[in-house]
């Protein structure tokens, strides 16, 4: 009973984060994983007791880019691929604000790839949530930089012949100090990853594997949303010291979940800037 009341309260609290009067119903296809990402994010913000006024949600263009508009906080829907640039300006101007950046895989890694690696290099305290559905959802199912080899898209009709990016490996290589992966099947785990990303001071990347059954699923005959969620469940493995790429191949696993990078030794950009200001002002 006590447990039930707690759950209800939590859902009411989450409801409080939504612009319910203005914005619903939302535009996503029924069963889309992006809704799960939104829910997980709001439960995390609530769990962290963040104040709505101190939260900024920034996004690029795409189905994922529509996340912020539904949330009752400071919200900014930018241009395709450039969300991190706006977020950089916001964070530098107001380091006290909590800035979350939502991007699709095309948004973050194709048109926004350059901004992505530079935000990581700078180690600016932003929490980037990359919703990876392996395809361009908004524009109707074209290939993305994360479309796996051999998988089809409306612009990869005979199967993708380009090597995909590994979002997390790219982020780690570029210098992101917190990098994690989860899926929309592993909701509780996803929430935990978002929470740790938000608590980390520095550039955090959380890749969330999601389903676009409408395009990716249909074109590649992957079934209903539930089938795609089951696929995520089957193909995922939690990271650990004995989980090697070889072992993953052997076990037929595709997604390595968990915290893949957590480096607290590198200073954060805004901190460095504040130090610089106090030095220059006093001299």
């Amino acid at each position: 009973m006590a447990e039930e009341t707690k759950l209800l309260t939590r859902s009411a609290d989450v409801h409080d984060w939504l612009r319910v009067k203005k914005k619903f119903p939302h535009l996503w296809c029924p069963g889309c994983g992006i809704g799960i990402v939104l829910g997980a994010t709001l439960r995390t913000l609530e769990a962290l007791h963040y104040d709505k006024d101190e939260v900024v949600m920034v996004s690029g263009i795409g189905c994922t880019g529509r996340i912020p508009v539904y949330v009752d906080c400071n919200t900014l829907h930018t241009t395709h691929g450039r969300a991190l640039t706006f977020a950089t300006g916001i964070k530098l101007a107001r380091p006290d604000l909590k800035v979350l950046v939502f991007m699709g895989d095309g948004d973050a890694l194709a048109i926004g790839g350059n901004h992505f690696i530079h935000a990581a290099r700078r180690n600016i305290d932003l929490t980037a949530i990359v919703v990876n559905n392996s395809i361009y959802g908004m524009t109707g199912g074209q290939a993305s930089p994360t479309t796996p080899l051999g998988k089809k898209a409306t612009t990869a009709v005979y199967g993708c012949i380009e090597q995909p990016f590994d979002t997390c490996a790219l982020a780690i290589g570029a210098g992101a100090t917190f990098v994690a992966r989860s899926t929309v099947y592993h909701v509780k785990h996803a929430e935990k990853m978002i929470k740790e990303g938000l608590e980390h001071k520095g550039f955090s990347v959380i890749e969330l594997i999601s389903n676009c059954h409408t395009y990716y699923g249909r074109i590649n005959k992957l079934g209903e949303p539930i089938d795609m969620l089951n696929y995520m469940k089957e193909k995922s493995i939690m990271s650990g010291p004995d989980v090697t790429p070889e072992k993953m191949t052997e076990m037929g696993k595709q997604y390595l979940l968990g915290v893949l990078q957590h480096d607290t030794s590198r200073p954060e950009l805004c901190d460095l800037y504040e130090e610089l200001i106090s030095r220059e002002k006093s001299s």
Partner: protein
Amino acid sequence: MAVPKPGEPVLLSGNEAMAYGALAAGARFYAGYPITPSTEIAEVMATELPRVGGKFIQMEDEIASLGAVIGASLCGLKSYTATSGPGFSLMQEHIGYAAMAEVPCVIIDVMRGGPSTGLPTKTSQSDVMQAKYGSHGDYPSIALTPSSVLECFTLTVRAFNLSEKYRAPVILLSDEIVGHMREKVVLPDPSQLEVINRAKPTVPPEWYEHYQDSVTGMSPMANFGEGYRFHVTGLTHDVYGFPTERREEIAALMEKFKNKEIHNTRDLTMVEEYFLADAKVCIFAYGSVARSAKQAVKILRRNGVRAGMLRPQIVWPFPKLPVENMLEKVSHVLVPEMNVGQLRKEVERLSCTDRAKVQGLNVLDSSFITAEQIVDRVREIRARHRHVGEYVNG
């Protein structure tokens, strides 16, 4: 070098004067990407902003630079960037965004020869049309053209004022000559400067409309993190900033954009008239070329020719009224430009057949247009028209 003291003579380049003008206007955020001939502006800002508690960041490209500028401006900091031709092309995406989302910001374009990488160290005026129509869609454009070092300072302050007032991106079109020339100037005392800050909402958050409809096209602006929790998007939106496809809401937004120009023509008109009252020949010039034009007027006057100059300090919106008045009075207009005639065509559009004849003097080889070239062209025009009996002598 330290920020020059107001009221004391100092030798400055146009680019430096722009940077100091921005500081005087209250700019506290700069994001940019190095490019000749604008880089000195970034260098001054990198030095000075931390000293006043502001932020400077060198971004990975010009698209990112203007993105960061817009982000910082949404948090209430007066923000700007500076670039030249190729970088100005890259910025067009976010100039349109700033116009659509009504975010104040200033973009300096120190023009150099184009197209493409063109002539990095040579002057030009070939971005004038891009300053108006560079981004896709219909949006209000404001652009200023300084022609002296002092004006680099004062028009930069003005540019910030206009961007704050109209909640719009404002472009400062300088050129390599104006940017790099050095002049002795006395910077005005801060108390003498009019500095405008964006209007704050006077209503509580629950009544706040971030894109309030208004006949003047202007509306108050809350910043992020101040309790107003509004939405900003580049999608066509309603008064709250929420995306819309309703025809009446689309029309209202587009109307608001138009109104920014239409209902504020007086505020957005800024021209210098030089010996224009009795002129029969008008030289219509802006930016560095206006310096030669002024010199040419002096020479022509000395030789008994009733010449004058009309110099727009704000080129966009185009100064329709002063140009029409001028066209009523003079017989000939010469538009010297370091481009194929981008503004000449605008003057021609206002000149019906019974008005003055408009001609261009267009130099495309990267050389500066001299006073002598202008004088010679005016003499040619006079000779030709005196010959056919058309020229009203003066």
